[in-house]
C-alpha cells in the first residue's frame, strides 16, 4: 500500500478502529459485573469531595494547555495544535482505564504493576480515603495532561494520525510504568535505601513529557523555514488565558495530590500560588534586563515554569521554600529558552526548556527543601538531593528510550511527518477540513447526498491544497 495513504484524513478512523477493536473485544470477554475487590475501607467524604473537585480541575488543565499552545502557533495551525491536546482526553483516557491504571497501580513487580486491574477489573466504590473509581479518574487526568504536553514540541508539522497512535502507546508504555515507579510502589520507593520525592508528578509528568517531547521533536525534524522565517504566535491573548486556566487547574493537580482535605492539601495549594508568583516576578526582571520590556508571552511562560517547578515539592516544603523554588527556576528556564531559540533544535513551544528544565530544577530543589515539619517523609539535604538527581536521570533515560522505540514503531506504519505542501498551507485545512478563523466569505454550499460523496469532495480539496506549496 502507498504509505502516503496514511496521511490522508480518511485513514484515521481506520487506524482508530484497528487500535480500539482488540481493546473492546477484550473488554467484552471480561466476566460480567466484577465484584469489588482490593481495599474495602469506606472512603472519607471530605477527601472524596476535594478529590472530585481536583479531578475536574486537572482535566480543565487540558483546555488551558490547548489555549496556551494554540495561541502560540501560527493561525494556519491553531486547530491542529489545540486538537493535539483535546484528542488526549479521548485516547489517553481509554488507554488509561483499559491498561494504564493497572500497569501503574495494580500489584506487580518493582518495575511494572500487574494486570489485575486491566479494564478496571476489581475497581469499585470502596477505597482508602477515596473510592477506587475516583482514584482512576484523578490519576487519569495526570496521564492525559502529560501526553498533551508532549505535543508542544512537534506542533505545526507532525502528522495527526502518527501523533494519536504515539500518545496511545506512550501513555500506556512510558507514562504508566513511570507512575508505578514513583507512586505505585516501584523502584523510586527504594533507590539504594532512599525514596525519590515526587509529590505531584515533577518527574512522572513534566520531566517525562519534556524528554519525550524533545526526542520526538528531533525525530520529526524541524519545521520548514525554521531558522529562516519568524514564526510568531498568532494570538497571545489565548496563550495568556490558557496560562491562567493552567494555574487554576494546577491547584487541583497539586492540591489533590495530598489525597486528603487537610492542612497538607492547603499547603500544596498555597505553594502552588507562591512559586509561580515568584517565577513571574523573577521573569519580569529578566525580561526587563534583556529587552527593556515585560513581555506577555514571557509572563505566560513564567507561570507555567513556576507551576512545573513546585509540582514535585508542593506538599513537602515550607511556603518560603516554595518562593525560593519558583524564583530559582526562572533563570535556568529563561536561559534554556533563549538558547533553544538560537539553536537548530525546533522544540516548537519550548516544552523541554519549560517543563524539562523547570521539572528538573524543581525535583532537585525538592531534595534540598523537603521538610519533615511541612509533611515530607524525609528531611531535605545533600543525600536527598542525590536521590532526586538519580530519579531524574532514570526518568530521562527511560523516557528517551521509550519514546525512541515507540516513535520508530509508529513510523513503520504511518509517516511521522505531514507532507511538505500540507505544512506550507497549514495543517488545519488539509488534515481536519476546517479553519480556525473562517469568515465564510466566498464559501459556496455544495449539496451532498451521501457521506461517500462528501469524503470524495473533501479528499479532492485536500489534495489540491496540499499540493500548493
Amino acid at each position, binding site marked *: 500500500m502507498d504509505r502516503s495513504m496514511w496521511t490522508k484524513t480518511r485513514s484515521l478512523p481506520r487506524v482508530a478502529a484497528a487500535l480500539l477493536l482488540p481493546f473492546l473485544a477484550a473488554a467484552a470477554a471480561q466476566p460480567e459485573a466484577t465484584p469489588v475487590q482490593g481495599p474495602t475501607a469506606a472512603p472519607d467524604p471530605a477527601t472524596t469531595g476535594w478529590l472530585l473537585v481536583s479531578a475536574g480541575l486537572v482535566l480543565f488543565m487540558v483546555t488551558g494547555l490547548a489555549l496556551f499552545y494554540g495561541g502560540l502557533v501560527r493561525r494556519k495551525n491553531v486547530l491542529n495544535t489545540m486538537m493535539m491536546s483535546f484528542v488526549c482526553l479521548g485516547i489517553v483516557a481509554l488507554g488509561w482505564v483499559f491498561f494504564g491504571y493497572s500497569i501503574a497501580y495494580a500489584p506487580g513487580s518493582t518495575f511494572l504493576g500487574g494486570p489485575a486491574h486491566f479494564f478496571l477489573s476489581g475497581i469499585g466504590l470502596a477505597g482508602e480515603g477515596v473510592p477506587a473509581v475516583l482514584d482512576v479518574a484523578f490519576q487519569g487526568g495526570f496521564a492525559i495532561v502529560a501526553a498533551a504536553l508532549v505535543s508542544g514540541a512537534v506542533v505545526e508539522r507532525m502528522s495527526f494520525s502518527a501523533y494519536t497512535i504515539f500518545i496511545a502507546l506512550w501513555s500506556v508504555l512510558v507514562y504508566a510504568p513511570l507512575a508505578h515507579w514513583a507512586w505505585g510502589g516501584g523502584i523510586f520507593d527504594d533507590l539504594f535505601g532512599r525514596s525519590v520525592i515526587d509529590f505531584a508528578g515533577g518527574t512522572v509528568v513534566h520531566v517525562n513529557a519534556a524528554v519525550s517531547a524533545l526526542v520526538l521533536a528531533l525525530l520529526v525534524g524541524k519545521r520548514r523555514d525554521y531558522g529562516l522565517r*519568524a*514564526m*510568531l*504566535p498568532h494570538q497571545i491573548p489565548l496563550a495568556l488565558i490558557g496560562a491562567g486556566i493552567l494555574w487554576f487547574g494546577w491547584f487541583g493537580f497539586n492540591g489533590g495530590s495530598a489525597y486528603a482535605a487537610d492542612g497538607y492539601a492547603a499547603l500544596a495549594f498555597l505553594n502552588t500560588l507562591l512559586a509561580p508568583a515568584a517565577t513571574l516576578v523573577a521573569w519580569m526582571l529578566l*525580561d526587563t534586563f*534583556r*529587552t527593556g*520590556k515585560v*513581555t506577555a*508571552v*514571557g509572563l505566560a*511562560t513564567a507561570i507555567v515554569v513556576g507551576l512545573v517547578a513546585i509540582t514535585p515539592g508542593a506538599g513537602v516544603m515550607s511556603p518560603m521554600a516554595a518562593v525560593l523554588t519558583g524564583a530559582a527556576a526562572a533563570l535556568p528556564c529563561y536561559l534554556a*529558552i*533563549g*538558547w*533553544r*531559540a*538560537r539553536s537548530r533544535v525546533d522544540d516548537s513551544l*519550548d516544552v523541554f526548556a519549560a517543563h524539562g528544565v523547570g521539572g528538573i530544577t524543581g525535583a532537585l530543589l525538592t531534595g534540598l527543601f523537603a521538610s519533615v515539619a511541612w509533611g515530607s517523609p524525609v528531611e531535605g539535604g545533600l543525600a536527598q538531593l542525590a536521590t532526586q538527581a538519580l530519579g531524574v536521570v532514570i526518568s530521562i533515560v527511560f523516557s528517551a528510550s521509550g519514546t525512541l522505540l515507540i516513535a520508530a514503531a509508529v513510523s513503520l506504519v504511518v509517516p511521522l511527518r505531514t507532507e511538505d505542501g500540507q505544512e506550507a498551507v497549514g495543517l488545519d485545512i488539509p488534515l481536519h477540513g476546517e479553519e480556525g478563523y473562517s469568515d465564510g466569505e466566498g464559501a459556496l454550499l455544495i449539496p451532498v447526498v451521501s457521506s461517500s460523496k462528501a469524503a470524495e469532495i473533501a479528499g479532492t480539496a485536500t489534495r489540491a491544497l496540499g499540493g500548493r506549496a
Partner: protein
Amino acid sequence: MKLVTAVIRKEKLDAVLKALFEADIEGITVTPVRGHGGEAETVQTYRGTTVKMELAEKLRLDIALTEPYVERAVEALLRSARTGEVGDGKVFVTPLEKVYRIRTGEEDEAAVTPVAKVASPA
C-alpha cells in the same frame, strides 16, 4: 478627475476623516496596508525570539474627485495626517480616466459627485 491615494498612519484616521468631512469630501475607501516606510524598524520579542518588523502597518485611502475638490482634499490630508515624524505617509494624485456608478450606470463626474449633493434640495 483625479484619484487621490493617501497612505497614512493608522492612528491618524480619525483626524483625517474629520478634516476631509470638513472639506466637503465624501466617497472614501479605506484599506489596511503594509509597506516599507522610511521610519526606524520596530523590534518585537517573543520569548527567545527577537524579530525586526520590516513592514509597517498603514492605512490607504482612495478618493476619486472632480477637479475643484482635488486641492482641498490634498490640503486636508497634508494638514491632518502630519505628525512631523518620519513615517507620516504619502499622498499620490493620479489622473482618472473613467468612473461608473454601478447602481445607475452614471459616468465620470456624475458618478464621482456624492449622491447627497445631487439629491439635496439646495
